[in-house]
């Protein structure tokens, strides 16, 4: 018996790679996540992971002297919300960064690496690829199959 599947819903938007874009990116992600029928807690977490990923692109892939865009493609299918972030900057692989020690006493806490926790812990899959044209980061959040 053939299983009928709805075609995926795709939304795409391009934002200038500047911190001032983060609020607009958040609005876009929240709209798409709501359309994927994710609950408010999960929407917050997806929003946070994308914010961290985009902040990293702005800070590390482009940095102070490079300018460019962040291309954000969102796909909703039966099983997941998939968010693909593309940039034309330097290679930056968030998966290569070690996690901070979140049990260390105050004086030994470093203030970096925290954003990667949000990406790794709050998304179900994180895939990174550098093609020579730029970075592609794919973030996947599974949809609740019972909804």
């Amino acid at each position, binding site marked *: 018996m053939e299983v009928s599947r709805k075609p995926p819903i795709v939304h795409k938007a391009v934002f200038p790679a500047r911190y001032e874009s983060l609020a607009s990116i*958040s609005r876009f992600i929240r709209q798409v996540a709501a359309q994927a029928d994710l609950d408010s807690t999960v929407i917050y977490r997806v929003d946070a992971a994308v914010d961290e990923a985009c902040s990293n692109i702005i800070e590390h892939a482009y940095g102070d002297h490079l300018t460019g865009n962040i291309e954000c493609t969102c796909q909703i299918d039966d099983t997941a919300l998939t968010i693909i972030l593309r940039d034309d900057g330097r290679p930056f692989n968030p998966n290569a960064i070690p996690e901070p020690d979140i049990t260390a006493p105050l004086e030994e806490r470093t203030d970096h690496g925290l954003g990667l926790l*949000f990406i790794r812990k709050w998304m179900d899959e994180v895939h990174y690829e550098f093609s020579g044209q730029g970075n592609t980061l794919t973030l996947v959040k599974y949809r609740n199959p019972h909804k």
Partner: protein
Amino acid sequence: MQITSAQYKHCDLVKPSGRIDSATAPQFAEALNQIMAKGQYKIAIDLSQVEFISSAGLRVLINTQKLCKRYNRGEVALASVPENILSALELAGFTTLFKIYEDVLTAVGSF
């Protein structure tokens, strides 16, 4: 993001609202730095109106806590933390580094 602050007898109260992300965290840091520049290191932060905090906001919190706790001269206490913000603090392991109060009056009264 909007920030208001008020000076009480035993502490200063800071109330940010909206998003604290990489774009707005410097403004949050500046508000806290201005208080510390006056020699005040006992600070309560009312988070009730914060809709979102990223790691950039968490960095401001931890750096301020380090400065305030130095020489035992004070500390940062958090109050009225929304559920999503609390889950971010928990994920980052911050709930052991800050006293967290259910309401602002209790936080201010703790100093």
